[in-house]
């Protein structure tokens, strides 16, 4: 993958990474009332849901698991609502609009992940579990030790994911309608707290269902409008995409010098071919592993399976979730390419370099454009869906973290499982408030920080720490407390440590170099002959900066003239502006000048921020671990740690209880029953 994968891939976070380049908001001032009206309607609906849910939420089982009364189909929609975060909703459409094929390919892993959930996790967890991942791990092990590590990991994963969502959400709302970042964060936080604290899992579930239905309906409508002019023919539609001059221009821009001798038709076709964005297959495989195994280890996804009455319903819910999530990604192919063709990559990237505004801008275009009523209504609607998305995802995460805190740590470890039902519910509500306030505070503190890697990190920790322990306790007789503690700690810590020394972190030397390049420009270069590919010194060298990495072949390069920096450009434009007499001309020059000035300000800001620094947070000048995604190393290590830990620790009781665990996970005998309503 290129160095920008995470930055662009995980929208929510990406918005923050590229924080400075925002307009006052995509919605024009005169139409803002409409956005607020749509927001108001959606908030009113979710509040009504919460009010209704609160009346039915009294016991622990009702608070954490909605009384196990959610049907399979409902849970399927809720899973989709929980999973389709702003990252997939806006981010993937954005990636497709900027990079074509690679963006679409990127979405596949997010669906395939659910096969693991369906085949090995959902039903056993429903049969064995109660409220949390800790319950599953504690089944035949020392409850205090396993619940402690499970809760720690749940809180870690949720916090990473939550921070990315909060920061991304705040920036998203700011980008769309120009509400101040802090106000957005506090607003999202208070709403989400209301759902969780009063309505527990029932309100959270129905908020997620509402959001998923809105999202799917909005996407279907947009795709209909995009696709209908081509008689719903795939080749005809894509023919129009590759024939579009804006798309061809974007490809030419991405390819740079290599585009020199390509015809417009070839350039357009290139948009549908791989390699414009994802360039490191090893990194991609590493990310794929984290997705495929990490989703099944995500505490807020696992928790969803405790809300249905039976294992069969858990199965139905994954099938429905796969249908909705997969169908949605197929729709994004049209949303992304449609935005590239109709809106144009240049305009999309001018509002947000990560491409996250592709979907909203497409909606505005299809409704009739920037100055039309309907266009702005569409935009307002999509913005409101984005807002509902953030709140729904955040609510699910807060509930997962709060349940780990209250059920695993307070009730399980501190109270030794002897808490009255009333104490349990109070603990759950208090924990939700604590986690919620923490989320708001972290969100505000992290303003302007690069949190792009946090989503990938959450998946990597879930895949390296949670999944190996859950999987092996369910399927391996000899797995025991020693293995779970070792696997959880080693898997998670390795994943986090590798990311800390990876290219995800900020390296001041590189930032300073790039900033100087922007301000001072680049000197002219002479023509270079082609360079053959060089073999590396082994596979380790592809992962760690200890020896020589393989290098790809480079084609011959023509001599390049010097590129002016922003300083020089600003001076030229200023002179032009003074010389111009025509008003219209003045306006265009002024717009160009503003653009250059923005880039200049950003580079100068970077220079100031990193002046005198030479090393990253970890004291490195450049990344030591060369992949963005640690899964390739941390996942096998996590599994290995569980196996070695279990073999060294030895626990007769865990082995004796294997028969019970295995029979129960397969048959559902003694599974937690639904509460009758």
């Amino acid at each position: 993958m290129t160095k920008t994968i995470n930055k662009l891939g995980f929208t929510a976070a990406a918005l923050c990474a590229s924080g400075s380049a925002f307009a006052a908001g995509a919605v024009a001032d005169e139409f803002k009332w409409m956005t607020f009206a749509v927001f108001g309607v959606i908030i009113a609906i979710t509040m009504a849901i919460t009010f209704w849910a609160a009346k039915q939420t009294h016991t622990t089982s009702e608070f954490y698991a909605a009384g196990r009364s959610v049907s399979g189909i409902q849970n399927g929609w809720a899973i989709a609502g929980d999973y389709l975060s702003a990252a997939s909703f806006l981010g993937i459409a954005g990636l497709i609009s900027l990079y074509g094929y690679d963006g679409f390919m990127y979405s596949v892993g997010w669906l395939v992940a659910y096969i693991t959930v369906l085949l090995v996790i959902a039903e056993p967890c429903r049969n064995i579990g109660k409220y949390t991942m800790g319950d599953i791990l504690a089944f035949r092990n020392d409850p205090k030790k396993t619940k402690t590590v499970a809760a720690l990991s749940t809180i870690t994963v949720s916090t990473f994911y939550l921070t990315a969502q909060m920061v991304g959400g705040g920036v998203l709302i700011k980008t769309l309608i120009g509400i101040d970042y802090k106000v957005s964060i506090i607003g999202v936080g208070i709403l989400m707290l209301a759902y969780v604290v009063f309505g527990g899992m029932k309100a959270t579930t129905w908020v997620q269902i509402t959001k998923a239905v809105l999202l799917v309906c909005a996407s279907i409508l947009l795709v209909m409008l995009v696709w209908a002019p081509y008689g719903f023919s795939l080749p005809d539609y894509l023919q129009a995409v590759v024939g579009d001059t804006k798309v061809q221009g974007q490809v030419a821009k991405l390819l740079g010098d290599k585009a020199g001798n390509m015809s417009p038709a070839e350039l357009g076709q290139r948009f549908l071919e791989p390699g414009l964005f994802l360039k490191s297959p090893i990194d991609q495989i590493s990310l794929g592993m984290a997705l495929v195994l990490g989703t099944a280890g995500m505490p807020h996804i696992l928790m969803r399976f405790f809300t249905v009455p039976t294992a069969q319903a858990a199965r139905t819910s994954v099938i429905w979730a796969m249908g909705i999530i997969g169908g949605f990604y197929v729709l994004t192919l049209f949303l992304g390419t449609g935005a590239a063709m109709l809106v144009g990559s240049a305009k999309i990237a001018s509002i947000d370099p990560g491409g996250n505004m592709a979907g909203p801008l497409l909606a505005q275009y299809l409704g009739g454009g920037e100055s039309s009523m309907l266009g702005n209504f569409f935009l307002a609607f999509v913005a409101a869906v984005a807002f509902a998305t953030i709140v729904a995802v955040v609510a699910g995460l807060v509930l997962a973290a709060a349940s780990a805190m209250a059920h695993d740590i307070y009730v399980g470890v501190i109270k030794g499982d002897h808490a009255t039902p009333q104490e349990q519910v109070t603990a759950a509500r208090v924990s939700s408030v604590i986690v919620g306030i923490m989320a708001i505070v972290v969100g505000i503190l992290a303003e302007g920080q690069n949190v792009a890697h946090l989503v990938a990190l959450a998946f990597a920790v879930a895949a390296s720490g949670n999944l190996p322990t859950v999987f092996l306790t369910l399927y391996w007789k000899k797995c025991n407390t020693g293995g779970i503690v070792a696997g959880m700690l080693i898997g998670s810590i390795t994943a986090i440590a590798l990311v800390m020394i990876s290219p995800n972190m900020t390296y001041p030397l590189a930032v300073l170099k790039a900033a100087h390049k922007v301000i001072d420009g680049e000197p002219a270069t002479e023509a270079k002959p082609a360079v053959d590919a060089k073999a590396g010194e082994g596979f380790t060298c592809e992962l760690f900066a200890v020896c020589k990495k393989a290098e790809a072949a480079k084609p011959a390069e023509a001599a390049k003239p010097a590129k002016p920096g922003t300083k020089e450009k600003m001076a030229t434009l200023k002179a032009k502006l003074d010389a111009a007499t025509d008003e219209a001309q003045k306006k265009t020059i002024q717009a160009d000048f503003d653009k250059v000035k923005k880039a200049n300000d950003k580079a100068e800001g970077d220079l100031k921020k990193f002046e005198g620094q030479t090393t990253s947070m970890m004291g490195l000048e450049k990344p030591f671990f060369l992949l963005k995604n640690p899964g390739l190393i941390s996942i096998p290590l996590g599994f290995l740690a569980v196996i070695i830990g279990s073999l060294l620790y030895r626990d007769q009781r865990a082995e004796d209880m294997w028969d019970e665990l295995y029979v129960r996970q397969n048959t559902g005998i003694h599974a937690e029953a639904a509460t009758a309503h």
Partner: protein
Amino acid sequence: MSKPSMNWAAIDADPRFQALHKKKTTFLWGLMIFSTVYYFLLPIGAAYYQDLFKIKVWGVVNVGILFALSEFIVAWTIAFAYSKKANAEFDAMAQEIINDAHKMGA
């Protein structure tokens, strides 16, 4: 709400449970391995077999796009196949064991 104690070892040893275990294990692992291999073919193909992915087969639609779309079809087919098999076979086998569970090993 105390649950009656069960002789789990006896249920585990029951030939019907063993049959369920065997059937499920083979079927699930088969699907799991197939889906994983099929998924990783996509990034590998996109990185190392670009010439193949670029071949146009249906207007401008090339092998790469069809292969990526096939990933969705395959994922859905696997989900459908598993659910069909589980609903038709595994559930019935499990139900039979549940019905007799309290008698086993007594």
